[in-house]
């Protein structure tokens, strides 16, 4: 099932499959980190610029309150970056530890783990995230909490299936025979060996989280105004589609570039680390 996202063959593959996506991701990261120190004012309202199309006075145009779209897209990149980093970090660590423990301890523990995973998988992820974010209330922390609660399951399932195939290896048996404790075996002998597929999963996970954060913000469940998110920018722009299509197109292009780039790089990474998607 390992269809590469870009079929290779053409010389341009390296450019479009590696260098351009890498550039996009590096820019995204830089903007997210140095954004707060840049001399931009994403919340500055300039009434003479209302709905102004891209041009000399506003590079990417202005929104319905006359705020610079360029500044807001940069501020939005920060929102998506922060949420993506936190969610992937929390859910991958949580999922990996839980999945590894369940598979290693086996028996009752594993059975409980499978049941919990099954139940979480029975509720469509983004739906649960919408309900959680809606009930917890808006705000960036609650978005992170909601997406982490949904996100850990995938890592747990992957870690579990990997550990199940590893735990009877000699080095694990040797460690048990030498009297190593569960913690030592899990963290020193199991998790390091299952890192590769988990890293690939996490890299695709970032793309999913970026879309999910924008989706929640689109529904009004994410960051609150005046803070900028690509999702809420698209929602605001949707009301002015006919007069100011750039309000949707600018954040939309930013979002797509990042998601596309992460998917392409994740694909590269998967080939590089030679990870096969295992049925679990």
């Amino acid at each position, binding site marked *: *099932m*390992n*269809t590469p*996202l*870009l*079929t290779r*063959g*053409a010389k341009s593959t390296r450019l479009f499959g590696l260098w351009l996506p890498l550039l996009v991701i590096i820019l995204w990261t830089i903007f997210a980190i140095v954004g707060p120190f840049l001399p931009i004012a994403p919340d500055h309202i300039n009434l003479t610029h209302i709905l102004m199309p891209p041009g000399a006075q506003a590079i990417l145009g202005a929104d319905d309150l006359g705020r610079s779209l360029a500044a807001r897209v940069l501020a939005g990149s920060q929102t998506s970056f922060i949420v993506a980093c936190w969610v992937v970090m929390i859910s991958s660590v949580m999922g990996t530890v839980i999945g590894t423990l369940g598979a290693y301890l086996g028996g009752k523990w594993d059975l409980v783990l499978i*049941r*919990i995973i*099954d*139940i*979480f998988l*029975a*509720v*469509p*992820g*983004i*739906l*649960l995230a*919408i*309900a*959680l974010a*809606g*009930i*917890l*209330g808006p705000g960036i922390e609650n978005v992170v909490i909601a997406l982490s609660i949904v996100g850990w399951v995938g890592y747990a399932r992957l870690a579990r299936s990997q550990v199940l195939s590893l735990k009877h290896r000699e080095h694990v048996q040797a460690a048990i025979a030498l009297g190593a404790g569960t913690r030592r075996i899990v963290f020193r002998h199991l998790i390091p060996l299952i890192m590769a597929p988990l890293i690939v999963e996490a890299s695709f996970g970032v*793309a999913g989280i970026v*879309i999910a954060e*924008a*989706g929640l913000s*689109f*529904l*009004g*469940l994410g960051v609150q105004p005046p803070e900028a998110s690509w*999702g809420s920018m*698209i*929602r605001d*722009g*949707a009301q002015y*589609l*006919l007069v100011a*299509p750039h309000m*949707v*197109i600018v954040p*939309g292009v930013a*979002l*797509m570039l990042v*998601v*596309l780039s992460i*998917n*392409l790089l994740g694909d590269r990474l998967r080939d590089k680390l030679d990870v096969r998607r295992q049925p679990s």
Partner: protein
Amino acid sequence: MQRVISRLGSTAIVVFGVLCLVFFLIHLVPGDPVEVMLGESARPADRMALRESLGLDKPLPVQFGSYLSHVVHLDLGTSLRSKRPIIDILAERLPATLELAIAALVVAIGVAFPLGIIAAVRKDTAWDHSAMAVSLLGVSIPNFLMGPLLILFFSLWLGWFPVNGREGFGSLVLPAITLGTAMAAILSRMVRATLLEVLGEDYIRTARAKGLGPRAVIWRHALRNALLPVITLLGLQLGALLAGAVITEAVFSWPGIGQLIIEAIQSRDYPVVQACVLLISLSYVLVNTLTDLAYSWLDPRVRLGGSA
């Protein structure tokens, strides 16, 4: 038969788990749910009444027990806003969502199969590359962006379809394309991959060797066997489709379950939120169980209990 029973058993456990999950949703409301739902200015008597009707004044196990018995009797409570039984509201909204989901499924299958088949049959040609590039674009464009862009081109500029609402066939086209795109993208990759796998099998070589034309090989021999994993994926993707419907419905003001859940969140009508999550999740579980059973029925290797 054994397989069917054990499958139904694990479905029952999952259904119970989903009920637990949905039940606990309301306990995640920060602070006092009753206060959040009614607002701070509510009269104490009203609060007492709501607390009592939701059973929030009783111990947790009792609450859960009465929740279960209500759900079993199809009593999902009353909406705090419209004061109507939630089950009636769901029944009213469900047809719209079903219509949208089925239309999106038709779009997805209609796009994915030709795309996947062309890509597999003409592997490594320009056809393959462009089909896969289209599919890559499809996975990377979220439906809350796809929707407004389609509205811009086809409703505002070309004037072919209404901007939103649910009136007649025309209003269904854009939401269905929006919702179906992501699934079409994933499905076409799957069709390509499984078809390529099957085309490498011995019996395909045999079919070719006995002089069958390429069309007969693809339709009569390859596709039939490539279909099974694709059907499983369809079942799995249906969850994403139902969840995606929430956002798509919000984009197009489509009066279905998805729109209902957003309205309910905005008006803090949490019993309705719970009911919507429950309905969507249970239909997803149901479809998955059915796909699983259909799979074992369709595939003699599984049906006859071989080591498939």
